[in-house]
């Protein structure tokens, strides 16, 4: 390090001011993704990877786009099931995600076993730090695989993030927290034992983001007809809001109209029946992309990941559009 820094005109309490050092100026900068001016995703021009299969297991040389049939909510034929790669490299994919395991370092004078319990099934290690006696500050430091600082936030804010609303988005009020900033360091979070309620809560979180933005497309997969039947009113409402649209995928036959901006693709492809997925393309804004992909391994217990990584969501959406449509 060089000569001491000068701190021109900064308030003593302002730790976010600009500091000037010889040869460099240090300013607060945001690590969040910047909005792009690119148009909404219109489908890849070339072959795209198959991220769902990649993350949860696949063979590298899979066939190209498989036959499918999309009904425009009025019913129709159903084509033969496409060839699906074996789900055999799951452990390899999991190991890669495991290698990025993060640590939550909790600082609080109060018992935080609830947070420890909350992360018991997640791909995160929870440890506690210590503050001097009498200090009632509560915060969490997020560390990367090597113990490096990734970010920090107050426990109140953290709890708010970890408690996604279970109710539909249209009755929620605006939250002050900027999700893209908050979730930057929680991209690609793996979970290993979500129950149906937790899955629905995370799904609502993604739908809420789409609802607020009011444009773009939600891509949602249903393991069977019954699962879709229970959610038709949700997607009818969502797709009637602003310029939102919904592309729904179901493994069973479907011939019921849901709404003008809702299309249902019926496919017997293995992954459609196997995974619960919800992806939002951000409506042309990379920072709003998010998604959830999970597999029901045991009855009512889901294993998978949720992500706020724009590139990964774009890849997943590209895979769905290439494989099942719309073109």
């Amino acid at each position: 390090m060089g000569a001491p820094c000068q701190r021109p005109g900064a308030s003593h309490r302002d730790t976010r001011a600009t500091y000037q050092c010889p040869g460099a100026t240090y300013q607060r900068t945001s690590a969040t993704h910047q909005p792009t001016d690119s148009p909404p995703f219109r489908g890849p021009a070339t072959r795209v990877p198959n991220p769902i299969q990649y993350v949860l297991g696949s063979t590298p040389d899979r066939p190209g786009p498989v036959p499918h049939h999309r009904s425009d909510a009025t019913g129709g034929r159903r084509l033969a099931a496409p060839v699906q790669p074996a789900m055999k490299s799951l452990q390899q994919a999991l190991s890669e995600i495991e290698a990025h395991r993060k640590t939550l370092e909790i600082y609080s004078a109060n018992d935080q076993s609830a947070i420890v319990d909350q992360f018991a099934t997640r791909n995160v290690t929870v440890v506690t730090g210590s503050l001097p006696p009498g200090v009632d500050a509560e915060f969490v430091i997020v560390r990367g695989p090597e113990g490096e600082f990734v970010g920090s936030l107050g426990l109140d804010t953290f709890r708010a993030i970890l408690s996604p609303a279970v109710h539909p988005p249209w009755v929620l009020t605006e939250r002050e927290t900027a999700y893209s900033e908050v979730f930057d360091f929680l991209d690609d979070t793996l979970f290993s034992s979500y129950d149906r309620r937790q899955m629905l809560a995370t799904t609502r979180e993604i739908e809420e983001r789409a609802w607020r933005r009011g444009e773009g497309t939600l891509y949602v997969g249903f393991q069977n007809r019954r699962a879709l039947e229970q959610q038709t009113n949700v997607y009818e409402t969502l797709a009637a809001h602003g310029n939102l649209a919904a592309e729904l995928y179901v493994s069973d036959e479907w011939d019921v109209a849901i709404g003008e901006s809702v299309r249902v693709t019926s496919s017997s492809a293995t992954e459609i029946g196997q995974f619960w997925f919800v992806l939002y393309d951000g409506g042309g804004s990379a920072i709003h992309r998010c998604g959830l992909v999970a597999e029901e391994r045991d009855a009512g217990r889901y294993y998978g990941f949720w992500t706020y990584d724009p590139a990964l969501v774009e890849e997943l959406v590209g895979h769905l559009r290439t494989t099942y449509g719309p073109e």
Partner: protein
Amino acid sequence: MNEETAPRTAFEDRTRSSRVFSILDEPLARYTLWYVQNESEVALTHLADVLTGWLHEDSGVVTTVDDRDRIRLLLYHVHLPALDYLGFVRFDHTEKTVSRGEIPSHVQAVLDVLREADLE
């Protein structure tokens, strides 16, 4: 009259007092003193990590590595050398570690008052 024979004691005392109050006015320095008092020795990077989380605890924002780096820079270049000069902490530039120093009782009294205000 050279520097070694100059009667500087009174001036030094006043300068020292000014330095003490100046440093105690800095939140980063105060939080450093509070934190270090509870630890035998702490690495500079860890101190910067904790102070970043602590100082922004009720701000509602998520801090970034940039925030932490800025605080680490200030600790290294400004606050730790000043606290070390006053003897309040021991700052090992080579090992980049910080440990407790000696805090006079009248300084501790001021710290305690400020602590009430900061942490209430």
